[in-house]
């Protein structure tokens, strides 16, 4: 009988491995990378040679731009281990422009960007980090004298595909949090209808970024996305439904505060505001930092960083529900609700007492009865 265990990956062709080795990449590391990425994309093992070929064969030009960002996504990417950042950047991708990485600066750097855009028009992959401020005529963020609005529009329109890394470029993120002083927007709302994929997260998970690029190289198109433009392979499942603490949730075992006994036992973080039930991301399975850990594993609840407007809707981070608009920060929905119910009971109680003592509202037949 054939079982799943019998399905063996077809080998990666020897000539690909030899070419990779000639470039100085360790053969074993390359095989591990192709296998891990194929798995991250939820593709069957039979796709490993296809992925290997696409990765080895195409060296796509990449332009990585930053607008209103903290460079956290660049940092996350540079810490990627599969393969090490150096290999990925120098061998698998051709990074034409990346503010954090490049040696050039000032007008020289801008020149490099414009040249790359002209040379690889319609072929390059654009990676955008950070939101785009539209306020003050785009004046809140200018690069080399050009506003982020103009720069981003031009780059997106000339790209083969655009990958928004992090919550800021995907949804506006922290710069767009209320009251959004710079009128920051996502790339998707600045250039509607362009070929864009969103990889929100604060920061983006480098493995998901790598997998998205590999998907584009392998199939020539961006991966299938959900309603929010996020790839289904990475954002198709809710954190809560794959959480390692889920058993404690269903049983009814919760940490009441950080450092209490239940917290030390590793119980569910629901009551300290974990937003795992509200958030779609593959953190529980892919984890961060070489698969070492992720927030809930480390004992802190999810803050829902890969959901739109997370700074406004997922906060207070240590409460389950958002603050009720128009009420104070300490007024939870339940306090207000109990107040409402109590006020209703008191009001009708008083009405009832008053009604008992009111005169002249007896039924007509009462009077008839008395008269008769």
């Amino acid at each position, binding site marked *: 009988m054939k079982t799943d265990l019998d399905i063996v990956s077809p080998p990666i062709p020897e000539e690909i491995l030899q070419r990779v080795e000639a470039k100085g990449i360790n053969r074993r590391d390359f095989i591990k990378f192709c296998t891990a990425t194929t798995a991250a994309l939820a593709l069957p093992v039979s796709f490993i040679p296809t992925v290997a070929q696409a990765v080895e064969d195409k060296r796509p030009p990449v332009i990585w731009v930053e607008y209103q960002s903290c460079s956290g996504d660049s940092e996350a990417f540079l810490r990627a281990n599969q393969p090490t950042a150096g290999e990925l950047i120098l061998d698998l991708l051709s990074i034409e422009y990346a503010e954090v990485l490049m040696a050039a600066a000032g007008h020289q750097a801008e020149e490099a960007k414009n040249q790359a855009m002209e040379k690889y028009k319609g072929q390059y992959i654009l990676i955008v980090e950070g939101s785009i401020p539209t306020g003050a005529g785009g004046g809140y963020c200018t690069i080399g004298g050009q506003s982020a609005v103009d720069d981003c529009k031009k780059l997106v329109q000339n790209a083969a595909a655009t990958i928004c890394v992090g919550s800021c470029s995907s949804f506006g993120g922290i710069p767009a949090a209320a009251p959004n002083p710079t009128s920051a927007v996502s790339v998707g709302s600045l250039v509607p209808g362009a070929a864009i994929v969103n990889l929100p997260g604060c920061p983006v998970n480098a493995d998901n970024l790598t997998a998205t690029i590999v998907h584009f190289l392998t199939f020539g198109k961006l991966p299938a996305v959900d309603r929010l433009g996020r790839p289904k392979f990475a954002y198709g499942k809710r954190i809560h439904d794959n959480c390692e603490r889920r058993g404690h949730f269903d049983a009814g075992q919760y940490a009441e505060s950080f450092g209490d006994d239940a917290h030390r036992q590793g119980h569910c973080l629901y009551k300290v505001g974990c937003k795992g039930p509200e958030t779609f991301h593959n953190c529980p399975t892919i984890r961060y930092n070489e698969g070492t850990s992720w927030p809930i594993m480390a004992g802190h609840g999810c803050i829902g960083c890969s959901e739109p407007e997370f700074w406004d809707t997922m906060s207070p981070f240590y409460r389950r529900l958002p603050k009720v608009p128009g009420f104070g920060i300490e007024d939870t929905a339940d306090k207000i609700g109990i107040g409402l119910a109590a006020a209703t009971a008191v009001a009708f109680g008083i*009405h009832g007492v008053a009604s008992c003592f009111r005169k002249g509202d007896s039924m007509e037949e009462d009077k008839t009865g008395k008269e008769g």
Partner: protein
Amino acid sequence: MHEIHYVWQWPVRICHWINVISIVMLSITGFFIGRPFMTAPDTSLYIMGWARMLHFSFAYLFTVSVAARIIWMFIGNEHASWRSFFPWLTRKGRAEFVEMLRYYTFTGKHTSRGIGHNPVAATAYFGIFILFIFQIVSGFAIYGQFAPGGLWDGILGGLNVLVGNQWLRLMHHGVMWLLVGFTINHVYSGWLMDVKERTGTMSGIFSGYRFSARKDH
């Protein structure tokens, strides 16, 4: 002397009592889901699991009941009809509405003395039906998150994007408290009218029959 009228047909009464049971169960389990007030001593229990199972089961029951009642609005008698929820559409209804409101606010001496919904109550029930539908829609939208691409996500998942799933949760939670407030009001008004009108307001929802003073003129 009184005349006896068959006012609340059996589908109305059944839906009413299913709604009562569902709302009580949904409020208790829903409150627990939002704020688990019991902690399990060991992992062998399944408290939240059962609370959610009950919540979802009663959600389906409640949905069927509300849907059945809405269908009955187009089949049943004049007291069950959708028209009875819009008393202010007729001149008589408007006059009775004002009379009833004046009675409640101690500025008038007489109730409207109909045998169906009183016009103020009917208007409130229209609002309550809106809240019921809101709870059903918002509830199934956030319920659908467990299975992206599934049935409920396909039908209502767009709301999570349009409104934001956390706002939907907050509103779903807030409307529960509105319904708690309504229940207090509803039971109180039922008691008051039972005492004052003596037309069988309370027993009517069990038996279906209400009484009215025979018009002798």
